[in-house]
């Protein structure tokens, strides 16, 4: 297929839809998703971020229980099942809102996706896709690639292949450990981010700290994705 580019998330800011007025009765809509006057459902604005949609502050630690409760509550408010007897316009809004809600829940529920999403909101760019190994893993990964190639070329029933396989197994364990370390570091960064936000300081120092956290988070996230892909490839090869 020709002429196809990836822009999953970049349009959020381009499309600003006013949501201050009810589409149906033109009266002012204060905050929630239903018009105070005519009780019609309102489309979730495309500029509304997922955190706000759930009524959560932009923090990286989330109470999963609260998130689920809110998801169920909003599902009851938006799901097309409850709009069967309503007008076409309301059915369309219900469908759009439900689809958006489901995406928001899926994103916020998973800590990695949540962090990637926040990074996108705060730093305004899509995630880095790493094509070369991170510096501290460079040697190790190159060696692993050689071992993988050797294994792929080997006669799987031979002793040599068995030796390579067990070598790859221990590589896998090491890389998975590495992945967990990165996740621990991310958790620490999450805490630092949330603390900084809670303090709400507007100093240069705070701004520098904010940029540092975001940069570190971006680096670790892209390294983690890289390692994860290597592990997936490894698992598929020795399976």
């Amino acid at each position: 297929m020709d002429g196809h580019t990836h822009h999953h998330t970049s349009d959020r800011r381009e499309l600003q839809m006013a949501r201050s007025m009810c589409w149906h009765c033109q009266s002012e809509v204060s905050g929630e998703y239903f018009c105070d006057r005519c009780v019609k459902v309102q489309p979730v604005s495309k500029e509304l971020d997922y955190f706000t949609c759930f009524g959560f502050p932009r923090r990286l630690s989330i109470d999963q229980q609260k998130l689920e409760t809110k998801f169920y509550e909003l599902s009851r408010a938006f799901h097309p099942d409850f709009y069967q007897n309503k007008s076409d316009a309301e059915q369309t809004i219900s469908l759009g809102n439900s689809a958006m809600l489901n995406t928001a829940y899926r994103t916020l529920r998973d800590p990695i996706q949540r962090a990637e999403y926040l990074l996108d909101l705060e730093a305004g760019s899509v995630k880095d896709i790493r094509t070369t190994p991170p510096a501290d893993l460079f040697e190790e990964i190159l060696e692993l690639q050689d071992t993988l190639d050797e294994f792929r070329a080997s006669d799987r029933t031979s002793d040599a292949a068995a030796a390579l396989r067990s070598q790859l197994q221990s590589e896998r364990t090491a890389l998975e450990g590495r992945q967990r370390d990165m996740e621990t570091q991310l958790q620490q960064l999450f805490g630092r981010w949330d603390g900084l936000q809670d303090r709400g300081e507007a100093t240069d120092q705070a701004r520098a700290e904010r940029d540092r956290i975001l940069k570190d988070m971006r680096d670790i996230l892209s390294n983690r994705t890289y390692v994860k892909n290597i592990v997936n490839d490894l698992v598929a090869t020795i399976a």
Partner: protein
Amino acid sequence: MARIVGIDLGTTNSLVAYMDKGTPRVIAGRHERAMVPSVVALTDNGLIVGDPAKEHLTRNPERTVYSVKRFMGKGLADVQNELAYFPYTLTEKGGVIRIKLGEKTYSPPQISAMILKELKLRAEAFLGESITKAVITVPAYFNDSQRQATKDAGMIAGLEVLRIINEPTAASLAYGLQEKTQGTIAVYDLGGGTFDISILKLKNGIFEVLATNGDTHLGGDDFDQLIADIFVTDIRQQYGLDLKAFPDHMQGIRLEAERAKIRLSDELKTTVNLELPDGKGLFTRELTREQLESLCNALVERTLGPCRLALKDAGLTAADIDEVVLVGGSTRMPLVRQRVQALFGTQPHCELNPDEVVALGAAVQADILSGGTTDMLLLDVTPLSLGIETMGGVMSSLIRRNTTIPASAKEMFTTYVDGQTGVDIHILQGERELAKDNRSLARFRLKVPPLPAGVPRIEVTFLIDANGILNVMAKDMRTGETQSIEVKPSYGLSDQEVERMIEDSFKFAADDVSARKLIEARLDAGALIITTEKSLTDGGQLISADEVTAIRQVLSVLAAAKDGNDPRTIRARMADLEQAAKSLTVAMLDDSLKRGLQGKKVSEVT
């Protein structure tokens, strides 16, 4: 709001259910049977459906269609290796299978529509109102084409399909309503032709599907076929007879295999008797449950893989499952129950009739849609990943499998050549890397204004609705204009074709109704003849010999009329017989009253 019924459109049997003051109930037809065999036969008097059609499986195998669900949303190439098993003729037109019945060919949605119409008529007769809206169930693992084909079938049958819901989740609604269960449940659904596993989380009336998996080509039919195959082999060895040359006997064997399988769910061994062709006599064979189980073991084993995958996708292990629910007639097999229990480590539930529970759940969903039930909400998922073909024939995934529906994804498209006026988009469904290994859903051409390369920006939204069916919308980001997209389905009927089939169904409806009236009249006449004969035997001595002769004469006139082709004549002769036999009925009633009173005191009677 008009009443909405729930329909289970099954591979072997179909049912219709409705909500009766908060309780879902299936609607029974004649003889109190709720199940309508999913069989359509072409007879000299037109097309017939259900129980009477089932009788034609052995009488008229080339003109009797069964298991049509297997062909929904499929092309001929998809079913190549099972063609030999079906006695009726399949062809293909425009990527859609067609079934030949006499001079005409029918698409699978048209055949399914005949079954749906039968259920619609049954519901209308029972509820005494016109039924035009329905919720229809499909296997959870049905892809977009198969769902669309089911929706088309509803339209052809004159039903507005308000929702397509998944069979295992429908079952969970029926159970949830009854038990008010909370926790994590697994629904194992092994039907006539399909297998589904769904893992759900139930909490405060929300039924959230975490993951689903399955096989749309695995079910009771396959067990029957294996059993039938050993009979065929035995008969070839013992009698040197190749039954494959006798389609009517092949159908007889298949049905006998099914009956033997059902008996072996309660018994440890059973005897099979089959009439052989060419006057070769009777084939008799014993079949034990052990033999059946070793025969079917591999097929049952095949259901466990999807169960493990669903658990993995849900991020759970078998130990996390609180309850297991069994759905579908095939879960009556002890072997299936053992395997399921061993896998999940918990005794499965089967309190609700596994044949009816899906239809009951569909009725619950219908009630939710009509605003009756408001405390329950089903959040289902899409079973397969949805994507588009990108450079190099690779599938780029847009909406992953097990994503909660409604779900949407947006993609931006532009051009590579100056003045390019279109971009071809190929939509796929499946889990494989390469486009060619996945299911092709549809193709369409995005219209682009002629501009320098890279300038156009067309945003395409792929939206999977609550039915699990894909909708595509496009918007030119420069002008803000939306464009309608003509999607050409890879394995489905075009809108025009569905329109035409709806018109056809009205045209043939008149023929169908008269065929139906004739069959019903014959059945009723047969029943009246039998009861009158019984009355003559039991109470003939209560009336005069002349009266008996008179009744017998009217009875033989009715018997002759019954073989004719006019339902009105049959009904008229039935009325004659009822009139003639009145004296007998009255005499018998008097007699029984008299005998009832004997030996009792007057005070007891008054």
